[in-house]
């Protein structure tokens, strides 16, 4: 009888109003991993169906942006690129920035965009942000190929103006990518959680991301005379700065990189991540009542 009563108490799911603050139920996320892949597939296919050029757009977008930057920041504003040829400097910045900003912008509307599905069926909500990160990572990989092609062109045909100085920091690239993904994800999750209640934030995101780009060493090197004169050390405290500079150090050997500085970026990311988990956990349980 007691054994029977004990087995009665083994429930698979217990739904209660109280919940642990940091529990992301990763085991459940793992059980839904197939959903993650199909969502990644959907993100790709749906984006370019019924377009003439299809996935070629992945390459056209960074190319056009690089051209624009070359004209505006290179030719008109004449911002120095630290001795690196402009196409290489801007393209690397654009590809990395696109990765970060897409992670951020797309996650920041997760609840709003998926209200219809979230209101009808349960699955770990975290799957959607994760699928965004993975989709963007694949896109990043494709665009990196473009960058490599341009890089090879410079190495083989423009050896007189450009010598490749890759350093061992290049092996840090996966860490940098992870860090950016987590930063984008955390900020996006916080924003998307808050927008379920306070819609105002949605307006800020598009605008804010633009501003953030200029506050990040994307179109200029952090370690330059003009930047220091203009903004002092203020821009150093942008946690994205060490990442961009680190990637540059790895590729061209020119960035400003120190370990304490890298540690600062990690610390900010971890703090934001904890906030994001708490807020996301709280909101995902009831947001459907307020959307």
């Amino acid at each position, binding site marked *: 009888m007691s054994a029977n009563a004990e087995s009665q108490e083994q429930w698979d799911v217990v739904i209660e109003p109280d919940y642990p603050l940091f529990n992301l139920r990763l085991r459940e996320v793992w059980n839904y991993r197939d959903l993650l892949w199909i969502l990644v597939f959907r993100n790709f296919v749906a984006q370019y169906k019924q377009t003439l050029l299809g996935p070629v757009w992945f390459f056209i977008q960074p190319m056009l942006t690089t051209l624009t930057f070359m004209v505006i920041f290179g030719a008109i504003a004449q911002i120095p690129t630290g001795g690196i040829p402009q196409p290489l400097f801007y393209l690397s910045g654009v590809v990395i920035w696109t990765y970060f900003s897409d992670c951020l912008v797309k996650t920041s509307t997760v609840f709003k965009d998926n209200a219809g599905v979230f209101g009808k069926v349960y699955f770990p909500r975290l799957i959607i942000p994760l699928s965004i990160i993975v989709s963007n990572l694949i896109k990043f990989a494709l665009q990196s190929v473009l960058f490599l092609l341009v890089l090879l062109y410079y190495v083989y045909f423009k050896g007189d103006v450009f010598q490749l100085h890759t350093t061992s920091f290049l092996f840090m690239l996966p860490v940098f990518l992870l860090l950016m993904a987590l930063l984008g994800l955390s900020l996006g999750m916080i924003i998307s959680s808050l927008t379920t209640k306070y819609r105002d934030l949605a307006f800020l995101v598009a605008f804010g991301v633009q501003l953030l780009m200029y506050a990040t060493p994307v179109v200029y090197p952090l370690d330059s005379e003009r930047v220091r004169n203009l903004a002092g050390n203020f821009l150093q405290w942008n946690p994205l700065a060490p990442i961009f500079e680190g990637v540059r150090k790895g590729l061209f050997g020119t960035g400003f990189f120190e370990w304490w500085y890298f540690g600062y970026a990690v610390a900010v990311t971890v703090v934001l991540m904890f906030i994001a988990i708490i807020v996301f956990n709280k909101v995902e349980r009831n947001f*459907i009542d307020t959307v």
Partner: protein
Amino acid sequence: MSKAIEVSHLSKLYRLGAIGTGNLSHDFQRWFAKVRGKEDPYMVIGKQNNREAGGKNDVVYSLNDISFTINQGDSVGIIGRNGAGKSTLLKVLSRITSPTSGSVKVRGRVASLLEVGTGFHPELSGRENIYLNGSILGMRRHEITSKLDEIIEFSGVERYIDTPVKRYSSGMYVRLAFAVAAHLEPEILIVDEVLAVGDAEFQKKCLGKMNQVSTSEGRTVLFVSHNLTAVETLCNQGIYLDMGRLAMQGPTLDVVREYVSRDLLARRVVQSTESKKLGNEHITIVEAAIENGSSETPSDIIDISSDVRLKITLINHTKDHHLSVGFDLKTAKEEVVFGSGGKLHSPPGMPTVFTCIIPGNFLNDDLYQMDIYFHTPGMSKLFAQRSMVSFEIKDQARENGFLGKINGMIRPQLQWASSAGIKTTA
């Protein structure tokens, strides 16, 4: 028998009015009260979920202290009026929203079908959407692959399976979506009126499939519907929710009977009140009532032999001096018994009383409801209300020495005769 679901003291609070704007200060007050260990100032215990009462408070209990258990293999019909909390209960059970207090314990994998085709992407093909929808509903990839042929066959859209679903007709779309859902194999299936879509043939197919799932495959099914006949055929257990509270749980037939009698009996007389007007800009219904036409007291119990009098007091706001009025008399399960109507004199702007008598010894001892319609003499629509009034007819003579109910929607008194001593050809 082991338990599949155990719900204890479940409550769910909703805040009414403009949620999402200008409540930063409310949020702060709630937070501050919580910090001091006080009760939430916006959560007053004991408010009932009654949308007709129009309470002053801006919070409402959609579910109020509900407890029940469901055994493995039961199929349970959840019934109640609109707004009784049925959908909220399903949402809490399927983890779309969390309860305010209380708990739900579940054993086994839950799949909820609150909608067919959740997450379908218009640009993807039918086949791709099967994978997408199946994964969202909690199926693993290999499960879907192994059932793919079966799903496609069940849907009946083989020819278009590689076409984007945005080119599908709405019927095909629903068929494909239901086909995926029908091949889920959860231990617990939660279904919310998805059967209201599709044509009659397809609905039959769906009901058949659900029946198969619950009876022969021994899974637990929770089913919300307004279609009481469907609930009676599909479910062996019933849960009746009334204004957020659990009114009754038990065998389906008993629960349906209780629901029908409680819900319909409350409406023998309906009146316009200050807060709730009956009618519209064309017609005001002052009162609609079913009276006992054979008794001195109109509110008496209506016996099978009594005349039933429908009495409508109304004010005509149109320019016509006549109104066309009609009703459909229906059983509690929404089957129409008959309809009747006529063109009656009703001078504009003054209260007029319409009456109609259904003779005694004609209806059965049962529950009935009336849909009432008003048209202009030229038959353009003015006002209509489903189930405006309802009533019960009792067979008092038979209730004393109970012989059981006689079958049928009506029970007219007919002439029977016998003649002895006649030659037959047989």
